[in-house]
């Protein structure tokens, strides 16, 4: 059986957690991701920037009642990468 290589961008705890959250919703704010992953702001910020650079998520910055908001949304490329990652995992686990 041929083993697919696991996407190194997704095979990291926090980035995978963020992608799993974003695949379940239409879009989510930074604070939602932070609360659900229990990550620190600094670490989360670095990881979502990496995901953005890979083209897996879109980040929009806006103001709501004078408070800055960072909204993250998974892209079609991100969905494809996530699906491939899960398929590769299944191959490894012989599911």
């Amino acid at each position, binding site marked *: 059986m041929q083993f697919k290589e696991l996407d190194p961008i997704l095979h990291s705890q926090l980035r995978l957690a963020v992608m799993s959250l974003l695949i379940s919703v239409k879009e989510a704010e930074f604070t939602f991701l932070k*609360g659900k992953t229990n990550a620190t702001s600094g670490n989360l910020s670095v990881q979502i920037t990496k995901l953005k650079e890979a083209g897996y998520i879109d980040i929009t910055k806006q103001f709501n009642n004078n408070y800055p908001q960072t909204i993250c949304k998974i892209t079609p490329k991100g969905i494809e990468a996530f699906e491939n990652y899960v398929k590769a995992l299944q191959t490894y686990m012989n599911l």
Partner: protein
Amino acid sequence: MPANEIKMTEKESLELITSMINRAKEKVNESGTLYLIWGWLILFCCLVQFVGLHFLNYPNAYLIWFLTWILAIYQVFYIRKKRKSSTVKTYMREINGYVWLVFFICMILIFFIESRFQVYSISNPLLLVLYGMPTFLSGIILKFKPLIIGGICCWALSVLSTFIPFDYQLLLIAIAIISAWIVPGYILKQNSKKENY
């Protein structure tokens, strides 16, 4: 080593994905507030109109329904405020919102058509048919049985309402509202309290 660089096994990866997808789901629980506010108001309007028509012989008792317009305006602000404070947008919530928007549009159109043709005698059976639609669909979307049962109750009562006089039809609407919105509303409220504590 930072948390994000901890080496994961394949099994841990799958577990993380499952746990995160479940955590995202928790957020979509409904508080039931709108079901309860609307449920109690419509129940109140039905009973006031019934008492007005049946016991006081007051034909303008239907005017009580204008209260629903005040609530509709309040709801626009409530939803706007809630949307602003919400940190996540889910597909489920979006589709559910559209279901209720379609219900609202159909309601306005039916009232308009009825007033154009001056046919008000079928208002109550039609209202019951309409109440059933978003209730049933919300039940399917939220995977929440009490709403599905409530929707079916509305439809059954709409058939029953064609066999009884106009003023008693109001009592059927009251029963429909209790089964479709008030009871599910309280169950949703209780469930959401359990989830949050």
